[in-house]
């Protein structure tokens, strides 16, 4: 029964969507305290390479690798964050973009460790490892009427979904806490926030390194979903793509980032039937939407309009 509904291709795209949601949030969090970071691709690479190397060379379980990868990216976020957060706006964007490139060039040149531009092969794939584990405790996919590859992708999808929901829950809760309000006060006016007794440096570094942590987490997961990474996966192109997720969907609200990541990952796949023209359509869509709605598709006004609509409907009833 279940087997008829599970298509590895769709699950794979869903998995990429979930990873992209994490990446979009990693830009959204620093942005919520007024910092435009373009270093996500770099932090993502740090997380991916750390986790991949640990699991390849030390046979660590994947979840340890992923956690360490994310933590290393987060620590790098703190180290980089402290000096570079003196910068703001465009200057910070350029500095973080530079950081991302530096990280990529290190991956290219540190050949003894990263195998240079050839990339790392043979990274344990999350789903396949889980399949092995399940078999060891005597569970066969066939018991649920699933084929092996269906089981593999279903497991990957479920794990990613749990992680993404957990992350969204965390960011959402944080937003409505003292920390989140401090973030938005810094975004509105740094000077005013400081005079109200908010420790600007602390909160800025906090939001920046949270973004780095999330990007690292996404990168580590990416490595274990793909099974192969190379420096070209973490280029400048990727940094811009991640930024577009957030800006396109709406950078003021978290659901904007989520929407942007889902929509922009799905579109190139849905448009596969027009083959060569799909990226042209993708580009035209971006131009039109940015011209019409520079704040992104979803913003606070639109959301509150939805809410009012719902409420008034409820009232009539």
């Amino acid at each position, binding site marked *: 029964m279940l087997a008829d509904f599970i298509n590895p291709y769709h699950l794979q795209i869903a998995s990429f969507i979930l990873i992209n949601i994490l990446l979009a949030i990693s830009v959204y969090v620093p942005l919520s305290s007024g910092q435009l970071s373009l270093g996500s691709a770099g932090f993502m690479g740090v997380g991916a390479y750390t986790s991949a190397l640990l699991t390849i060379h030390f046979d660590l379980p994947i979840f340890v690798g992923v956690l360490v990868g994310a933590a290393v990216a987060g620590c790098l976020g703190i180290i980089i964050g402290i000096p570079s957060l003196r910068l703001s706006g465009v200057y910070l964007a350029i500095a973080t973009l530079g950081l991302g490139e530096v990280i990529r060039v290190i991956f290219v040149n540190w050949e003894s460790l990263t195998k*240079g*531009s050839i990339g790392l092969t043979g990274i344990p794939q999350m789903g396949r490892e889980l399949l092995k584990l399940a078999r060891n405790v005597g569970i066969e996919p066939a018991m649920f009427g699933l084929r092996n590859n269906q089981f593999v992708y279903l497991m990957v999808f479920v794990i990613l979904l749990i992680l993404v929901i957990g992350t969204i829950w965390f960011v959402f809760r944080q937003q409505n806490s003292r920390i989140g309000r401090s973030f938005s006060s810094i975004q509105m006016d740094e000077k005013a926030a400081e005079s109200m007794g908010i420790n600007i440096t602390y909160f800025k570094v906090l939001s920046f390194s949270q973004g780095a942590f999330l990007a690292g987490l996404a990168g580590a997961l990416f490595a274990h979903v793909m099974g192969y990474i190379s420096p070209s996966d973490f280029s400048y192109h990727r940094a811009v793509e991640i930024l577009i997720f957030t800006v396109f969907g709406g950078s003021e609200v978290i659901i904007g980032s989520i929407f942007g990541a889902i929509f922009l990952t799905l579109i*190139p796949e849905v448009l596969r039937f027009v083959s*060569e023209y799909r990226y042209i359509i993708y580009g035209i869509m971006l131009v039109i939407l940015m011209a019409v709605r520079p704040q992104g598709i979803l913003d606070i006004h639109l959301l509150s309009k939805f809410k009012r609509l719902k409420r008034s409907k409820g009232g009539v009833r």
Partner: protein
Amino acid sequence: MKGIFQKSFTVMVVLMLFLLTACSGSSTGDEGSTNTDGGTIQAKIGVVSYLTGAGAAYGEAITNGLKLAQSEINEQGEVNIDLVIEDSAGEAEQALSAAQKLMNDEEILAIIGPTLSTEFFAVAPEADLNGISIMGTSTTAEGIPEIGDYVFRNSIPEALAIPTAMEKAVERTGAKKVALIYGNDDVLTKSGFDTMKKAAEEMGLEIVTIETFQKGQSDYNAQLTKIKNANPDLILASALYNEGAVIMDQARKMGIEVPFVGGNGFNSPQVLEIAGEAANGLIVATPWFGESEDPKVVEFNKKFEEAYGKLPDQFAAQAYDALYIYADALKRAGEADRELFHEALAETKNFEGLLGNFSFDEIGDVVMDVKVVEIKDGKFVEFQ
């Protein structure tokens, strides 16, 4: 705010469910149509190619080569091949999604592509796991056929091409000292460099200097000055043609007159257009020699130019051969069954293709003779 939070989940859950349930009918499609039908064998071959983005020219050449081969094969009538072409945009995860889509279609017999080695490394293990034969037509990096039983390639690996070219060049020039220059941020050029260095060491050549450059660089004077001062007898350049041609141009202007030995990526008629006179003295080993007098090559050139308005390059030629190899294996397999096809493909021996006599070794790598060509007086000629 809590409402928005819940709503975000609702939206996500709905979208995910949509994705899950939007199963295409093709996955449950019947296999009946792929079987023999009045003597001809019907088969669908999946193609993953780099059709949009910076390297789209490669993907275009490959798909054109495939389409030409397809129309010829179908005309002959023994097998009838359908090509299902998907774009990968040169990105590993897109290539994986595209390949996943193809593999999920029960009617797809085997896959050709993806174009880049970085894409291939991501896709091939998955194909191998699913038991679908996959063949690279443009992937020359080391370690590709080793991925698994179902992984093949018909592009000549650098490990075979470069040493052949170096041996011939050293034989004629009697070179003792060599300088190396390579692009260190590209899989192809990096793996070509590894091969060059290993071959140079094995041949007992003295490496006087090793220089690197990056993709898209336009000024190589710093590296070339060092090379000039080291005074080598031969320069081994692992570069793609666009950078390589500029390097040769600047080297000649600087007064470096020694021959260059290049890898597979350096082998393109574009070198002549970019570097002009300065390209004289480039030696490359290649499976594809477009100026050849071989009637097969002449005919292919003519047909290709008629169909697409330009002369084919090695990528088109390799793709053309690849589909013929698949068709040949399909004939021997007798029916469009993934397992039978895989067995037949692995047994490919002494196949007479456009590029010459072709066989797979036991891991699915190429066994064939390599031609060495050089640029002399502004055109490619066979190396004497």
